[in-house]
Structures are given as C-alpha cells and as structure tokens.
C-alpha cells in the first residue's frame, strides 16, 4: 500500500515553485522587453516643430524623388515683399529653388548667406531662386533681405496660403525648408532644415542635369 503524499510536502514545493515562478516571470518580462526594443527600427517620423523650426535632428534631411515619382506640376503666384507680382512662369524650363523662411527664425538666418552665394553662383545658368516669407510681416521680411543682401525675390505669405498649395507630395514642413522644382515645375527634391553649400549644390546639379522633356 502506498502512502499518499502528505499535503504539507506539496505545499512546500508549491511555495518554492511559486517563488521561482515569480522570479522567472520578472526575468522573462525584462528579457522580452529588451529583445523587442532591439528589434524596433530606428525612429521617428513624429518629430516636433516649434514655431515651425525643426528641433529634432531626425526630421532634418534631404529627400530626392526620381522623375517617375514626382507629383503634378506646381504653379506659384503671389506678391513679392516689395509689392510686385510674381509667378512660376518666370522660371519656365528652369530649375526653381523655393526657400521657405522667416526673419525671426535662427536657422534661416544661418543659411541666408549660403543661399545668397548659391544664387549668385547659378545666376544665368538656368537656375532660378525664389523665397517664401511666411508668418512674418512684409516690413520685417524686407529688412531681412536687406541685411543678407538676398539677390532673388521673396513672396509674401503671411497666412501660409502659398504653402498650402505646395503640400501635395513633399510638403515644406518646417521653417526653413527648401524645395527644388525640376524644369517641368514638379517637386524633385526637398531639404528640411538649414541648407549646406554642398548639400543644396549637389541637389541643384542633379536636378539641372535632367533634360526637360
């Protein structure tokens, strides 16, 4: 006749099993969390802007669209800071560089000399520059262009209406941002954040090299 195992022994082993289970549960949880966090991909499409200025470096960057992925042609028309009318017809069959800026924006002030230099370098070579001064008064915008000697016109866009028309494929999501339109007025490239001489220069060369069809 077998002795039925007494209950106290089982409760002791139950207690020990329970304690080790608790410990194992904790370790498992932490290990799995660590594993999953390693598997996740590098970030972050949800960068945050303050006053339009990018403060998260992961949203800053350059995007280039090959010709078959570009959206329809864009027409921009507005008034410059000096009050004269301007449309994209002035840049037909030319590469158009559109720079979105504001006079109160620090990164815009840092990139202004670079843009002025590039505009001078590409003058008369089939590349046109135009600025869009947004969230700013015309007086302040004019003072900015005078300070940095910006040679190209800037459109006045206090209300952001012009930027609305640009939001189709590659919207200029930050202040500053720069769009490069190809010879058929389609958005070919975008730089979010302040431009560099080499970065914007390379983008312009790449788009300019394409033939207008």
């Amino acid at each position, binding site marked *: 006749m077998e002795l039925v195992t007494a209950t106290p022994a089982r409760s002791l082993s139950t207690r020990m099993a329970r304690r080790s289970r608790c410990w194992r549960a904790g370790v498992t949880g932490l290990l799995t969390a660590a594993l999953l*966090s390693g598997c996740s991909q590098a970030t972050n499409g949800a960068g945050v802007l303050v*006053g339009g200025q990018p*403060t998260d470096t992961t949203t800053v960057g350059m995007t280039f669209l090959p010709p078959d992925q570009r959206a329809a042609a864009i027409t921009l028309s507005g008034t410059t800071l000096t009050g004269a009318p301007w449309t994209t017809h002035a840049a037909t069959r030319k590469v158009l560089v559109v720079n979105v800026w504001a006079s109160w924006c*620090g990164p815009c*002030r840092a990139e202004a000399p670079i843009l002025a230099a590039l505009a001078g370098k590409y003058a008369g070579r089939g590349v046109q520059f135009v600025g869009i001064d947004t*969230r700013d008064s015309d007086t302040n915008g004019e003072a900015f262009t005078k300070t940095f000697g910006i040679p190209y016109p800037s459109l006045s866009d206090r*209300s952001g209406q012009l930027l609305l028309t640009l*939001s189709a494929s590659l919207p200029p999501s930050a202040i500053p941002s720069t769009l490069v339109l190809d010879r058929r007025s389609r958005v070919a490239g975008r730089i979010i954040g302040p431009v560099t001489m080499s970065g914007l220069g390379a983008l312009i060369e790449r788009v300019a090299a394409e033939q207008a069809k």
Partner: protein
Amino acid sequence: MNDPRSDRDTRVRETRERAVVTVEETSDAGPPMSTAPADPAERDGPARLGPLDWARWAWRVLTSMRTALLLLFLLALASIPGSILPQRGTNPIRVTEYLANDPVKGKLFDRLGLFDVFASPWFAAIYLLLLVSLAGCVLPRSLQHARMLRSRPPAAPRTLSRLPEHRSFHTDLDAQVALNIAADHLRRARWRVDAFPHDGTTGSVAAEKGYSRETGNLIFHIALLGLVVAVGVGSFAGFRGYVIVREGTSFADTRSQFDSFASGRIFTDSSLPPFSFSLNKFRVEYQRGGQQSGSPRLFAADLSVTTSPGQAAQAQRVQVNEPLEVGGVKVFLVGYGYAPIITVKNARGEVVFHDSVVFLPQDGNFTSTGVIKIPDTAPQLGLQGFFLPSAAVDAVQGPYSTFPAADNPALFISAWVGDLGLDNGRPQSVYKLDTTKMTRLGIKAMRPTSTWALPRGRGTVTFDGYSRWASFAIARDPGKAYALIAAITAIAGLSLSLLVRRRRIWIRVTQAKTGTHVEIAGLARSEHSTVGDDLDTVVAHLHPHRTP
C-alpha cells in the same frame, strides 16, 4: 482580471470545496465554475523540457495575471523619466538647451530615448507586451467559456449534506410530482435545469444559474483590449497641433504654420486637410462689478473659413466647447491674449521692424509679458517687458494690471542692444530674450501712439496700439468613437460580472414508506452568494406539501 483575489485564494477555495465532498467524489461537484487556468505547479513531478515546452512555458508566464501586473508597474515606472526630463513632444527648446548645457548626460539620455519616452522603443515594447499578455489571456478563456456556456449542469453529488447550503424535509407528495414542481419552479426562475426522473429509488434535479457572470467578465476584458487598441489607433493615425493666431492674420493648415505639433507614426504631413481660416475679430466681454468681476462673460472668435484653396470663405464663430469642424478635423478655441503693435526705426529713420507681437498673459488680469526681437538692424536690438491692459504700478511688485479689459493700456519695456544669438542658427523661443551678449539701454513706460527715442541714438520705438490673439488646438483622433464604445461596453461587462452570482442547486427525492424525503443543496462560486435564499424559495414552493 476575474476578481481582485489572486489565483492562490482561488485554489484554496476550490481545495476547501473539494474537501467538503469526500475524496472519491472530487469530480461530482462538476468542473470548477470558472475558466481560470489550472495551476501548473500541481502537475506531478519534474519533466525534461524541450524547446516547445519552453515556448509553452514562456507563453503561459506571459499571459499570466502576475506578468500583466508586472508590466503595468513597469509602464508606470517608465513614465517617470517622462515627467522629470524635458520631452521633445512638449518642450523641444528645453531639450536642445539641456543637450547644450550638459552634453555628456544629455547624449546618454538621448541614446536611451529618455527625451521622448512615449515614442521610445522600450516603452513601445512594454506596451506591446501588455497588449499581448492581455489578448493571450482573454481570448483562450473566451473560447473555453463559449464551450462551457453550452454545457449542462452536473449531476448531483452522492452526499448532498456535505454542501455548504443544505435543506431536507419530508413531504407526502409523490416523488416524481415533487421533482416536477421543483424543476418547473427553477425553470421559471431561469435556471438551466437537468432532470433525472425518479427510477423507483431516487430521482434528482440539477440546476445551474449565473453563466453571465463569466460572460460579463470576459466582455469586460475584451472591451478593455478594444479600448487599448482604439486609443492606440487614435494616437497612431491622429495628430494634435496648437497655434496662436493674431487678429487680422490667418492660419493655413500645413505643418510649418503650427506653433507645436505632435502626430502618430503613420500620420503624414500631406494628409492634413488644406483648410485655412482668418481671425477677423476676437470678441470678449467681462463681468464688471460684483463678486465675479473680471471673469469673461463671452469670448468668441469670428473666423472666415475656407475649406480648400480657391473656395469661397464662410463666416464661422468658434467658442469654448463649440469647436469648428472642417475637413474631418476639429478646431478648438483654447485661450486668448493681447498683442501690442510695435514699430522700430533705426538711427537713419528706416523702419526695421513693424508687426503685432504676441504677449503671454501671466495672471487673471492679463498682465502679459513678451519679447520683441529686431535682428535686422546693426547692432541688433531686443525689447522685453509687460503689456498691461489696465495699467497700475505698485511700489513693491512693479507694473501690474488691475482688470482684464483694455481700459488703460500701457507698455513697460526695457531695451537691449547687442547680439540676439539668432544668427548662429540655433532655434530660439520667440518668448525669451537671451541677454548674455546684450547690454541694457534703458526702460520706459509707454502709452498707445507714443514714441521712445532710444538712448545713444540707437533709433526709435513706437507703440502703435494693440490687437488681440486667440490660440487654437487643432486635432484629429480617429479612434475616439471606438474608444467610447469600448469603455461603455467594459463598464457594462464589469457590472454584469460583479452583480451576477454563479450557483448550482441539486434536489434529490427518495421515496420512503413514510413519504417522500426531499433533499435540496446548493453551491456558490462567490462568498456573498444567496444560494440559501434560492433554496428557501424552492422549499417554500414545496412548503404547502411539507410535513414536519
């Protein structure tokens, strides 16, 4: 989970219940009246574990209540750095300042994702594990319960007298008749009844009621899962932005026009609907005199809204709790304030600055502070100070406002000259003046239309007047409606699981020479059961036929 008691108490209770019935009748009371999984520690003996067994063990641990509680605790712990350190989502300027002031610690924290806790991968891992744990526990139990819903009540145990509630008496009714009366009564009271007719010696009736307790429990957990998913979907695909719009200016719904913006991972900037509105007038009226003097009686923003470029503008009024709905997006009126209009001329008399500048209110009477930066003059100028709609000066605390309406507007500013720090390219808050590279020129109190000639011939500052601004929150949350439905369903399920009592009743009749011996016994799942009352009603039903 099921109830606040731990699995341990459940096991103790079930052990106690089983102890009441004798050892050889362990299975007579029927399967346990819940779908809680059996305790793996009670399986006999250690076994060699293969990889499949390890996977099964890991799954069992992950979906256990203990792990869910541990993950909830970790979730709470993970939110602590989100409260202590500045977060990119709400205060990105402060994050940049932190990184600049303390690059070593700042870089380490950035690498660990502590500046953006709720978007970091480890937070997402905890959240996902919690979701998996919840789903993995609830779904198999739902299947089990669905199967159990169709089960019949178990047959009566041999010795009814050992059950917690027990009644017995004699009656002069025929055994089968007594059984039928009892069975009918129970069926009318919506018990699930199984009758085993009298076969000459004994007959019995088994009844069970209260299945909806477990149903309610499972509805609650599935609805909770649905709520978590709905909130997740809402934040994944939604966005929220804030913008301050001055009277006379407009806002276009594109990313660069927001003052702050946060969106979910699958949200793209081009999915913002292309509406725009202009703030024609911001109306505010205050209570004057009486106990509530100074509180706003009305504030409303009169807008002209265009649904997309080229459409005709429509006049709309937005008030607090009366948002504007356009393009699937809601525009809420959040706050308002004053924006003085300033003109600055340089030494040569050229206008170098002209605009309305947003000043932020500091108290209920709209004592507002602000900064005006004039970077396009050499050397650069900066102004900072107070705008007071109803100005008064106190000897100790300085200028302050006595009433929120613009009864006596004044501007108290100090002028600074030097380097604003804007040209180095680092983004700055427009509400803070960095005076580390500047010297103060002087201070002045100004009335509307007055001009201040700055010391040392630096130029002139003119206070032209003031306008108002209104701040708006613009948001879209696709999961909101589903979250509401899930929350209501969860509460309904919880109520069901707390109010319904699960119990079993057995009736056994034995034909004896002295009459019919009737035994009724009941068993309940929860402590606060009313099985005794149910038994008493059955007894009362048979009462007229009872002999003492």
